[in-house]
């Protein structure tokens, strides 16, 4: 199962709210809300395609400005 670490930039003041909404998306865990309206989260999926679906969902959340990818491990993804 692939795993990725992402950094989510939110609009001014929106991070706590976004962080709560993220909890409702399966496969995404919030690991920390940090300075400058940013959230560190870990995304998991059965496949890379699942992960991308979840990140796409994150991008469409109200208050999310951008989602950046810091780390991606997909060594168990089926060839």
């Amino acid at each position, binding site marked *: *199962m*692939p*795993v*990725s*670490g*992402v*950094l989510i*930039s939110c609009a001014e003041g929106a991070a706590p709210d976004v962080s709560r909404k993220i909890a409702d998306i399966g496969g995404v*865990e919030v*690991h*920390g809300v*940090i*300075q*400058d*309206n*940013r959230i*560190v*989260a*870990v995304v*998991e999926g059965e*496949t*890379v*395609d*699942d*992960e*991308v*679906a979840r*990140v*796409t969902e994150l*991008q469409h959340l109200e208050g999310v*400005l*951008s*989602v*950046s*990818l*810091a*780390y*991606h*491990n*997909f*060594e*168990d*993804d089926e*060839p």
Partner: protein
Amino acid sequence: MTISRRDFLKASAAAAAFAAAGAPLLNPLASGEAEAAEAGIKWGKAPCRFCGTGCGVLVGVKNNRIVATKGDPSAPVNRGLNCIKGYFLSKILYGRDRLTKPLIRKGDRMVEASWDEAMSLIAGKFRESIDKNGPDSVAIYGSGQWTVFEGYAASKLFKGGIGTNNVEPNARLCMASAVTGFMTTFASDEPMGCYDDLDLGDTYFLWGANMAECHPVLFSRLIDNRLRNPNVKIIDFGTRRTRTSQMADQYVRFNPQTDLALLNGIAHVILRDRLYDETFIKRHVVFKRGKENIGYGLEDKFKFADEPKLINFDEYREFLKTYTPEYVSRLSGVPAKTIVELAHLYADRKRKVNSLWTMGFNQHTRGTWVNNLVYNVHLLTGKICRPGENPMSLTGQPSACGTAREVGTFTHRLPADMVVMNPEHRAKAEKIWGIAPGKIPAKPTYNATEMFRALDRGDIKVVWIQVTNPFQSLPNLNRYRKGARKGDGRFVIVSDIYPTRSTELADVILPSAGWVEKEGVYGNAERRTQQWFKLVDPPGEARNDLWQTMELARRLGHGSLFPYKYVEKEIWEEYRKFNEGQGKDLAPYEAYAKARGLRWPVINGKETLWRYAEGHDPYVKKGEGVSFYKNKADHYRAVIWARPYEPPAESPDRQYPFWLCTGRVLEHWHTGTMTGRVPELKRAYPSAVCEMHPEDARKLGIKHLQKVKISSRRGSIILPVDLNGRGKAEKGNIFVAFFDEGKLINDLCIDAYCPISGEPDYKKCAVKIEKA
């Protein structure tokens, strides 16, 4: 996988994100834990395979396969973060339909062949065509996805071996106007500034550039800058509301093509209100005016040569008289008051001002002019060549700068800004290449559009396409797709990693190695040259394009052009001779193996952040402040050009009442041949849609997601209308992305181009819309 290892991997993922965010103290891992979880993974560095930003990626390899990627924390461009396209790096090499064997056309079928068979056939076709029709009947067409080595080998073989200037890149469709803009204003290609300006400035004018979607990592740097400094202002000039517009402080909508008038209007106000920097102008600037009513390149074999004349400041002022805020407002739709305010903002001495642009300016029938005009504003105000204030042209392909522009894989260019028209330049190239004097032809042949027109007419018989997809990306596509299959001796070779809309028209398809399956060097938009080593083997019999080109050379009797053992390193050291002492100096190959890229000129191992600026660029002498030292003809000054507003090649009328603009979206890159291989991505943005203004839709009785037929004078297409997408078309405009290989929107685009740069305009043509 054990639970604990998975937890460590998750912690590693979080730790990388914390570190990239500058909060490493929150790293939950004890020392050694991440290494344990990642046991067996070997990491290597590479620039990202996608756009021209040039983000650093750490690529994790296990058992000859890529199993992980990280934003490279040591990479100054992206500091540990990649955009969403980073997810596709896991997939681009591993799509199920990867090409792994050479294929030769037998009637309607493509049949597997050996390399020897395929290369013999190709070499035979080249030889036959050269013997019968001369060297100008064969051509090579590459792109800014070529590594430096691949582009260099192609140029050397064709210009220096075969003896034809039939070498062109996809960059002609993408960056050519930026090149001619730089060359005509500064006599040297590529920007004076660098990405550091995104952190150091406080005022950013974006011109027709959807940075939030197309250069997300750079846009994040802008947004981070604004978070730190509430004074930062982002002004988005556009013809379409985008994600960038939503995040900008001000969105300025203008009518297509009137960027020419707006920039002249801004210059008019700067002069009228005496906002210019008189000292800078006196020391560093000359004024020129060239030919006007210069045409649109719509006829085959169109030719144009500018005739620049020096003018003085008063004549320039006189030229600008027409461009009053009121006149420009009538043309552009931007309120006169806004034009005055923005001119004052551009000239505000307390502000550090930058301009950023990409295809909105470059894909423009007056692309060279509009590049000139944005430099005018910076030169008038002296806001140039200083940390934090510069004009900056962004790029779309990973080595549009490094390969297409710097190696010079255009018909008229040679490495290091040299051109085939100049006898001294040819002589220098012939000497470095060790070929007979007079071998390189003195006349440029065809720009990209003209090259495919020549194939259609039959003047070019054999064309080899590498690392790009012209039979999806050319404008007025239908003509060129038909032309490729007209027979009568025409022979098309396509090297790629996947089947594309171009391979389907090929007579031979060659399976290529991609990205880290080969060693490479790319150069990004800020003059940063980045090297990587081969990290995994290509699949099946796939081989890199460099080998393919050298193999053709060998079979044509030009093998002596490539006498290398360590091919990449030796090509680099040879190529470097072109750049030495030219303000474009490059470091020895080993330096790039270590560094996360270096920005040229690199002198004594030190890179240059700001060109032409004393204290930053070693070519500028003490006391000069700023020196445009490449422009010897104009006494080391830059040129302010009097360039008028002229209308586009085609504007909406009663029959075709809408503007069509094409472009990219976040999820896909170029023609989608790599990103389209991620199934979920295809679901996220599965196929092209027609963005339309709700009011226009209402008038036509069209509902959201209803199918419409869009037609231009050249072709038509059926697409669903999107009234609710993340891009919002302005009234009278529609937007369609060009990645979708199932919907060739370029059939509709006009093949009009800038007469100076030869770059087509994909942003403006007239269409009509009917219910399908």
